[in-house]
Each structure stands twice: as C-alpha cells, then as structure tokens.
C-alpha cells in the first residue's frame, strides 16, 4: 500500500490545484489550453504564471525534496516528435487533455469530458499494446 501514497498525494494536489484555480479565478486547469493560450492569447499573463508555477513546483519535488529525476521517454526521437504533433493536434481538436477533460471535466460531470477521457484512455492502451507487440517490449 505504501507505494501508492505518493501517487495518491500527487493526485489530491492536482485536484486541489484545479479547485483553487476555479475558486479564485473561475478558470479550468486544462494544461493544453493553458499552453496554447499562453502562446496565442488572449489573457496571456495568468497562463504564463501558471506555467512558471508548474516548473517551480516540479523543481521543489526534485531539488528540494530530493525525489530522483525520471528518465526520458525510451521512444526514438522521431516517434517522440510524431507523438508531440498528435498530442498538439488532438488536444486542440478535442478541446482538452488529461487535465482539462480528465481531472476538471469529470469533476464538472461534463458528458463531453467523459467521452473524451474514455476515448483517449482507450486509444492510449491500444497504442501501447501495438508498440509493445511491434517492438517486442523494448519501448
């Protein structure tokens, strides 16, 4: 059970972050939307502050609390590039990612978010099953 304390604590913090942003500013903590809004606007300033905070929070975990840095993705660079491209296209087309649809949208009981979350989870599982098969478990 002990190995699940950190994941659970992290999850509770993600929920607390989303609720704080909603309570204080009335905004949804959807990271894909925050990223694109920070680049393209409008209302850039709060989005940049959120992203700066994101890096700072990660820094506290690794450099102040001493949690080891995770390794980079084992996927070859060209796959990582395709992956990023698909995540960019898909999150804008579908109006959200794991945070906006998964964490915030499910909490709002949004049917759109439920459909999106089930869909991207299913496709993530299928994609990993296929890459595992093709790579013989190397990825």
């Amino acid at each position, binding site marked *: 059970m002990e190995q*699940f304390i*950190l994941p*659970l604590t*992290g*999850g*509770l*913090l*993600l*929920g607390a*972050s*989303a*609720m704080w942003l909603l*309570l*204080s*500013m*009335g*905004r949804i903590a959807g*990271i894909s939307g925050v990223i694109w809004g920070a680049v393209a606007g409008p209302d850039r300033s*709060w989005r940049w*502050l*959120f992203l*700066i*905070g*994101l*890096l*700072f*929070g*990660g820094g*506290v975990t690794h450099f102040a609390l001493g949690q080891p840095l*995770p*390794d*980079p*993705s084992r996927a070859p660079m060209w*796959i990582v590039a395709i992956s*990023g*491209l*698909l*995540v*960019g*296209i*898909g*999150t*804008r087309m*579908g*109006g959200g990612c794991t945070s906006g649809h998964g964490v*915030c949208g499910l*909490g*709002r*009981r949004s049917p*759109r978010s439920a*459909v999106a979350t089930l*869909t*991207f989870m*299913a496709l*993530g*599982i*299928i*994609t*990993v099953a296929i890459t*595992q098969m093709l790579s013989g478990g190397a990825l």
Partner: protein
Amino acid sequence: MKAWPALIAGILFGLGLTLSGMSDPAKVLGFLNIAGDWVPDLIFVMGGAVVVTLIFTPLVVKRARPLLADSFSLPTTKALDKRLVSGAVLFGVGWGLSGYCPGPAVVSLLYGYESTIVFCLAMLAGMSIEGRVSKRLG
C-alpha cells in the same frame, strides 16, 4: 483580473505531477500497458484528483462569482461530435507513443532532456496546424 492565484495553482499542479510519478513516461506507459507488466499507480493519481474535483466543483460553481474574478470561465460547448472524438483519438495515440501528455511534458522541460524539448515544440506545431486547418475547413 488578478493573475497571481494562477502561480499558486501552477505550483500545486507541478508538485502533484512530479510527486505522483506522472512526469515519468515509463510509469505512464506502464499504466497504459494493461496486457503487460501493469503499473497501477495512475489509478491513484487520477482517482485522487477526480475525487477532489467531483466533491468540490459543484460547491465552487454554486457561488455567484469566483473570489478574484468577475465570473466563471467554463466551457460552453455541449456537442458530442466527431471533432471531440477525433481529437481524443489523436491525443490518445500521441500519448501512448511517448508517455507524455501536455502537463508532464512541460514539467519535464526542467530535466533538460532533448526529447521533452522536441515533444513540446512538436506539440506547439500541432496546436498551430490544427488551428489553421480547422479555420480553413470552417
């Protein structure tokens, strides 16, 4: 509108992503690999986060307005359409290929790996392409 609360929200989010292991693509792919050596951690991450939002979202949006803004900015689209599902399909495939979704990818920039820089640039390119194509298609 006061923007400083977003800094606090970002810090909490960054802590949450890194403490939970979401910024480790191997853990994320291990979670999606249900047929293989399954890593259940992310159930606790998602579960913990969603329990909080399920309980508190209704209480918060019942208020007349947020603490430091004039109104709530909530999504108004309701349509369960092809665009929503196609977007989620593409996102799911992209997520499954590398193990990165937008939040963990941004926080991983901290680690200085070439692959997360490539991922984030490609993601921005994808977002920009999607905007142009969908504008043209009307």
